[in-house]
């Protein structure tokens, strides 16, 4: 709001002694503030609630509710808790000053006061209060924007996972700061083939979200059926190189042929998938060659690794926000824990298994919030 359109700030002056109140009024008249007055605690509380003054100058010794109690009630009510209070009192004992400040007052002025001192302190606290309010307003506006970006971004993710014959899917997606850099998608290819993409734009929040949206747009505008993982990553990289600098995006792309139960895997700087072999009851990180992340430099060739799945096998694609989730001792969750979780739980449905994994990661982290985005895509062969 421009400076000149702002309403004058308002001060509430509270004192039971009419002479004191008048002196105070005259002292602050030249400040340009709108002055409200109250002669006792009850009236002060009522005016504070109705008029929300920008600052309250409060006498302590008053009949009825005293100034300390008025301050306590102001601070207990969310509607008035943010209004700064300056005590003005003839009580000069340090104990009284400390009590006043402990109740949440911002300052304490002893009576009889010097008019210049009162004006200077009022001016200081109005400025602090105004700046604080402006910072809060900007923070709210920024959070609104981030939330709006987050909403848009969530709409980029698939609404539902497809029904695939012989393959059950589940997904978990969580951002650390509203909008995030993680992305997953599923593409239907002809002949009962499916493409699964998991990507992670470096960083998080707004810049990563833009890169994530770019990756999504490029993936969906790929001009061929995305049946060749190497070619797809080559295409994404070619375009990301034009915009990503100095950032980058890691990606894992897997094509699943539901008829032959075979996988083709390509990887750009991204952790390889984990595969659980039902026959061996063991999960491993599936070794596959790869290239550096998207958006850095042109690729010569993107290696593709093949794998075969059998009924009961599981494949997990994830972003490193999972394995690099910290606990309170600054240890990371790591690949080993994730592998053991993928082996657990016998005949679980993918959504249940995924929920158990996420719970295990959260339990490991303890009270420490995630500082990166986390995405998991799990498929179980029937």
């Amino acid at each position: 709001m421009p400076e000149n359109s702002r309403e004058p700030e308002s001060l509430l002056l509270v004192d039971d002694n009419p002479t004191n109140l008048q002196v105070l009024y005259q002292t602050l008249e030249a400040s340009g503030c709108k002055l409200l007055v109250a002669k006792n605690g009850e009236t002060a509380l009522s005016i504070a609630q109705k008029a929300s003054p920008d600052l309250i100058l409060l006498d302590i010794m008053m009949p009825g509710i005293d100034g300390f109690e008025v301050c306590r009630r102001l601070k207990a009510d969310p509607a008035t808790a943010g209004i700064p209070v300056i005590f003005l009192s003839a009580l000069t004992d340090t104990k009284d000053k400390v009590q006043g400040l402990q109740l949440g007052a911002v300052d304490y002025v002893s009576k009889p006061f010097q008019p210049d001192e009162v004006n200077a302190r009022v001016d200081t606290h109005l400025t602090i209060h105004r700046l604080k309010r402006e910072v809060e307003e900007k923070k709210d506006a920024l959070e609104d924007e981030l939330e709006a970006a987050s909403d848009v971004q969530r709409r980029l993710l698939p609404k539902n996972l497809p029904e695939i014959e012989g393959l059950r899917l589940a997904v978990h997606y969580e951002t650390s700061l509203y909008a995030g850099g993680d992305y997953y998608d599923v593409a239907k290819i002809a002949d009962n083939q499916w493409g699964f993409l998991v990507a992670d734009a470096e960083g998080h929040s707004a810049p990563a979200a833009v890169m994530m949206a770019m990756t999504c747009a490029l993936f969906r505008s790929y001009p061929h059926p995305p049946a060749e993982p190497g070619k797809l990553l080559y295409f994404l990289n070619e375009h990301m190189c034009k915009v990503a600098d100095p950032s980058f995006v890691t990606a894992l792309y897997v094509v699943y042929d539901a008829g032959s139960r075979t996988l083709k895997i390509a990887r750009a700087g991204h952790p390889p998938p984990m595969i659980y072999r039902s026959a061996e009851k063991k999960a491993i990180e599936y070794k596959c060659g790869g290239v550096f992340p998207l958006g850095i430099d042109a690729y010569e060739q993107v290696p593709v690794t093949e794998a075969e799945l059998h009924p009961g096998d599981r494949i997990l694609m994830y972003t490193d926000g999972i394995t690099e989730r910290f606990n309170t001792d600054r240890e990371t969750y790591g690949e080993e824990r994730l592998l053991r979780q993928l082996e657990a739980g016998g005949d679980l449905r993918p959504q249940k298994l995924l929920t158990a994994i996420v719970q295990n990661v959260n339990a490991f982290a303890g009270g420490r919030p995630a500082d990166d985005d986390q995405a998991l895509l799990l498929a179980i062969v029937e």
Partner: protein
Amino acid sequence: MEISHKEENGIVFLAFNGRLDGSSATEAEQMIKSILEGENNRLLFDFADLEYLSSAGLRVVLGAAKEIKRKDGKFALCALNAYVKEVFEVSGFGAIIPIADSVEAGIDEVKK
């Protein structure tokens, strides 16, 4: 995160101690930028005391590599611990940035 800096025989050495992650990346980027403002174009990162490197840390290394490439210079990393080495292998960055086992081998790499 602490970064110490020295120059010897036309090579800039940066020794990293601690964790290069989101919370230290910006500071590291600014330091590298100011060091590379002059004529320097031979840069060696000593990672012997680097405990942890996140993707934000990879961005710092990548930024340095690009800047050195722009200045037609030489850049290498050396003395990585097993964890950090694995990060470079899995991420594919090992293919675009020379990695030496020891400081001596690193010096040879950037002297070429």
